């Protein structure tokens, strides 16, 4: 059904979203809210992290699963003091996060992992919030509305959206269709739905048509820019 051929637009030009990493500099600004894929750094677009570090963008609000390790993924932004606030489920593997938090230099919002991913999904899927039993009776419910449904209590958790989503795809075609290998899927396909601008770092860049439409995990229509990442 699928043919291996270049994707041509109606002018017969090859249409792709592929850019040089330096072309992205205009897009990225101090104070932005950025969602970053990955779980302990696995599935994180490290070249895009390099770019943020190179540009020394400041006061970021970062949303992701965790703050990784000091030398990996989101962890590197923390260590480089570029982050004003993180919304994550776990900071235990990066001692610098706790240190900066205790010094009052970094705001940390902890959200249970299943709640966090649903909040991002709600943001991207146009839902008003998430009704979850997770966190009831704990510090997590503080300051939040609780709703009783069929005699069970649920916390109303609010959606999350971002200016930018930074994604790492294992196989990406030039239209932006993305396939994730193994556990690198994690937050990546969900954050692709919840941000105004979506940038994919392609481990393997392929031609349009090389990824069967059934196994596309992030449709290219959601992707604005692609950079070549490599291993």
């Amino acid at each position, binding site marked *: *059904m*699928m*043919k291996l*051929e270049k*994707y041509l*637009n*109606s*002018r017969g030009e090859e*249409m792709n979203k592929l850019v040089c990493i330096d072309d992205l500099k205009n897009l990225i600004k101090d104070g932005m809210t950025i969602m970053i894929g990955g779980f302990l750094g696995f599935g994180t677009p490290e070249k895009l992290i390099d770019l943020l570090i190179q540009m020394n963008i400041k006061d970021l609000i970062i949303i992701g699963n965790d703050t990784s390790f000091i030398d990996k993924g989101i962890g590197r932004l923390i260590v480089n003091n570029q982050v004003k606030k993180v919304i994550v489920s776990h900071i235990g593997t990066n001692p610098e996060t706790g240190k900066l938090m205790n010094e009052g230099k970094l705001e940390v919002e902890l959200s249970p992992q299943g709640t966090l991913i649903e909040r991002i*999904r709600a*943001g*991207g*899927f*146009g*839902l008003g919030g998430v009704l979850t039993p997770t966190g009831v009776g704990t510090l997590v419910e503080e300051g939040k509305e609780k709703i009783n449904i069929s005699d069970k209590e649920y916390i109303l958790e609010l959606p999350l959206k971002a200016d930018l989503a930074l994604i790492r795809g294992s196989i990406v*075609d030039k*239209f932006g*269709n993305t396939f994730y290998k193994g556990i690198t899927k994690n937050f990546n396909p969900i954050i692709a*739905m*919840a941000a105004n601008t979506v940038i994919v770092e392609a481990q393997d860049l392929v031609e*349009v*048509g090389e990824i069967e*439409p*059934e196994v*596309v995990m992030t*449709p*290219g*229509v*959601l992707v604005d820019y692609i950079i070549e990442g490599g291993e």
Partner: protein
Amino acid sequence: MIIDEKKGKEIIAKRVAKELSDGQLVNLGIGLPTKVANYIPKGINVTFQSENGMVGMGKACESGKEDANITNAGGQYVNILPQGAFFDSAMSFGLIRGGHVDATVLGALQVDEEGNLANWNIPGKFIPGMGGAMDLVVGAKKVIIAMLHTAKGKPKILKKCNLPFTAKKVVDLIVTELGVIEVTDKGLVLKEINKNITIDEIKAVTEAELIISENLKYMEG
């Protein structure tokens, strides 16, 4: 008026197609809206979504090449383009409700001055159900109604819909064979008119008040 139904639908589909721009994700409803795909201007790349679980929907399938795994939301056999993708209904409506669909083109039973829409329920007569229409008109960034101006001679563009709403205040643009009407805070503004009719003639078959645009143009078609 003097326009037959088939010709009217062609005028509508052609005109709606001009509303779409390069790079957009668009959902076309069943029936007349489906025809819009045939008139996308050269140089404009539009990706079509089908809410049964596909983006990158192509044209209707050639006879003899039907694949029961590739149909549109009306159950008709279609093709998928090389850049397309399939997904489940939760993702499909996530794209819709989440504002990722740039425009949706739908038919209507009634539209009114406030941009209210009725297209799913004729109480006591025929209640097909809303299907994906309620989500589409709430979620898509631009809601375009593509319909014949009247039904059996009766106006469909009303002061106030009297059939159950599909959604409140969602319609952005109404395209009929007689004209192009924008829904604004001040009411319905006639922006373009079919060159074969007069303003009085279009007013005569429109129950809603029509504000005539200062820049009223002839509609192509």
